[in-house]
């Protein structure tokens, strides 16, 4: 019996739940503005989530997935990216999407049932939200492959959940990225739950980071409630990929404080007790403690920030609610670059039906 390979998985922690330091701050984090930007990103995200859930409850928005308690993963990841990198999000990365320039009203439009919401004005190359779990991982490999073939120093960043790590195409994409040394970084948002299925029922692997070993790439675990550590560890992974050293995986360990979505009732399958213990570790208060301890933050600044975020979200909600409806023909006009001749009659039929519906509505109104 001879040993032919050995591996270790490491975990990075910087900011403790109580706001004290478990390790020295990275240089960039010594700059107050950097920390405050991260803080603002998380607060804005939480403000949006609260509002979105409220809009859904009051029938003005469809099902939405809150990222309550997980803001550090999305914000820290986006903060580590360059604008020219490409984000391939799952459905809980609003914090990253806003950071990258997606407008709040655009995201609201999407969850409000309007495809135009995915045709956002900034970050044009970023992928739309991916609902079929894990199915965007191969796309990330493709985007990374494009960068590699064009010799561009850009990175494809894929974010997916603990549940998604059970999907075969995720493994396949990682395996390809490994063997082709593609500039692809995957952030596994391990929030401990896939709807009602706990992480422990998803895999027997001690960590999700070690799944990288199967694909011949590095995997590391980070405290996902510590935005500084996330930003730092994901940043290293991204710069490693950018410099041609290949893909890697970052497992960000966090916790889903909210229901899975507004369509879910987590009380059916987990104890409030479990949830409240995790409230002690949530990322926003944690960073605030550091800011306060360093004298960078106080009551006024907090109130101003909260008020600003509220205003920004409110304005976006108004814009969202004021959107004019899209023409029904949109549903076929964008299926192909141009409507194929054989489908022209269907386009007509769509317009006729839309007219009939409108007439019907009027009829009902009268």
């Amino acid at each position, binding site marked *: 019996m001879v040993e032919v390979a050995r591996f270790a998985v490491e975990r990075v922690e910087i900011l403790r739940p109580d706001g004290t330091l478990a390790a020295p701050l990275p240089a960039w984090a010594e700059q107050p503005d950097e920390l405050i930007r991260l803080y603002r990103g998380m607060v804005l995200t939480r403000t949006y989530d609260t509002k979105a859930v409220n809009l859904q409850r009051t029938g003005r928005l*469809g*099902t939405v997935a809150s990222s309550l308690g997980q803001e550090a993963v999305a914000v820290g990841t986006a903060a580590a990216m360059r604008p020219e990198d490409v984000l391939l999000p799952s459905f809980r990365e609003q914090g990253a999407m806003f950071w990258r320039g997606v407008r709040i009203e655009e995201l609201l439009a*999407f*969850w*409000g*049932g*309007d*495809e135009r919401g995915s045709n956002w004005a900034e970050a044009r190359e970023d992928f739309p*939200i991916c*609902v*079929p*779990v*894990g199915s965007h991982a191969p796309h990330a490999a493709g985007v990374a492959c494009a960068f590699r073939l064009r010799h561009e120093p850009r990175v494809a960043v894929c974010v997916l959940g603990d*549940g*998604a790590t*059970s*999907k*075969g195409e995720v493994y396949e994409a990682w395996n390809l990225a490994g063997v082709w040394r593609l500039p692809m970084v995957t952030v596994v948002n391990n929030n401990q739950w*896939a*709807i*009602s*299925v706990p992480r422990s*029922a*998803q*895999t027997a692997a001690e960590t999700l980071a070690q799944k990288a070993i199967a694909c011949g790439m590095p995997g590391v675990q980070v405290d996902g409630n510590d935005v500084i550590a996330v930003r730092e560890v994901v940043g290293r992974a991204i710069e490693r990929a950018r410099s041609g050293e290949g893909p890697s995986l970052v497992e960000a360990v966090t916790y889903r404080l909210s229901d899975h979505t507004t*369509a*879910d009732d987590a009380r*059916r*399958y987990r104890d409030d007790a479990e949830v409240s213990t995790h409230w002690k570790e949530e990322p926003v208060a944690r960073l605030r403690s550091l800011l306060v301890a360093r004298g960078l933050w106080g009551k006024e600044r907090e109130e101003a920030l909260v008020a600003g975020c509220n205003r920004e979200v409110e304005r976006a909600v108004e814009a969202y609610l004021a959107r004019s*409806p*899209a023409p*029904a023909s*949109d*549903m*076929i006009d964008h*299926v192909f670059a141009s409507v194929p001749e054989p*489908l022209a009659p*269907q386009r007509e*039929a*769509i317009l006729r*039906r*839309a007219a*009939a*519906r409108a007439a*019907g509505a009027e009829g009902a109104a009268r």
Partner: protein
Amino acid sequence: MSSMTLVEAVRAALARALEEDPTVLLLGEDVGRDGGVFRATERLFERFGPERVLDTPLSEALFTGLAVGLGAQGFRPVVEFQFDGFMYPALDQLLNHAGRLRARTRGRLSCPIVLRAPYGGGIRAPEHHSESPEGLFAAIPGVRTVIPSSPARAYGLLLAAIRDPDPVVFLEPKRIYRAVREELEDDGRALPLDRAFVLREGRDLTIVAWGALVREVLEAADRLAEEGARAEIVDPATLAPLDAATILASVAKTGRCLIVHEAPRGHGPGAEIAAILAEEGLFSLLAPVARVTGFDAPTPLPRLEGVFLPAEVDILEAAHRLLAHR
């Protein structure tokens, strides 16, 4: 007798099957404690335990292949897909394995599995949650595709599907999961597969529809009746293998056929029905066959969904066109 919604009827059939046959298993995502996202398996985990009701890791391709292995070993796994749009990873296992394990081993191994999923639009759900993929499944040799359109048929057909020795894709019209209640006896009595149901007799026009749209069709038929036209409503229930005889007999009587479905039109599930009429019912047709369907586009998000999905007015408009032919 108790009054049940469609999803309650599904749950009753699942409980009955678990009760009567120890080889029946429920597999899927969140079918355990959570009771399924639509609560179709609610309390079954508590009642039958973790060896009968199993939450799998998150992969549809996996639990479909898992079911094939369990089925070959004599279990009768009933797997739940959370939504229609997540069934596609199962197609490979259905096409290359489930649908042919019996044939390729000449009966040595078989595949008594059921793949359940809520399907169809109309609940203002997110992307990939409102698909009508029945046509894809209906095209797979060796696999039955069954769709109930009422609580009673959900109960009887699901029991039949579970007891059937071959693979069945069982699509549940989520839009009417809770829309109607029906008095039904939880007596373990199954309904026949491979048999169409004539839901209403009529002599002027045949309307073929399944799933959630059967309601709009019945309402349209009421309107037509007020106008003096009597529509015969045929619900194939089993889309494949398709009971063509019942449809042909109906059209032989009415001379007119309207086919209604949510799925896209082109190469859609209604095409086979129209094709059979063109082949075997041609000379009884007084009017062209008509299809009222979705469009050849991805199901739109909720804002435009109402235009994509056929409504009663569309059915009436088409019916009037056909009735104009004498």
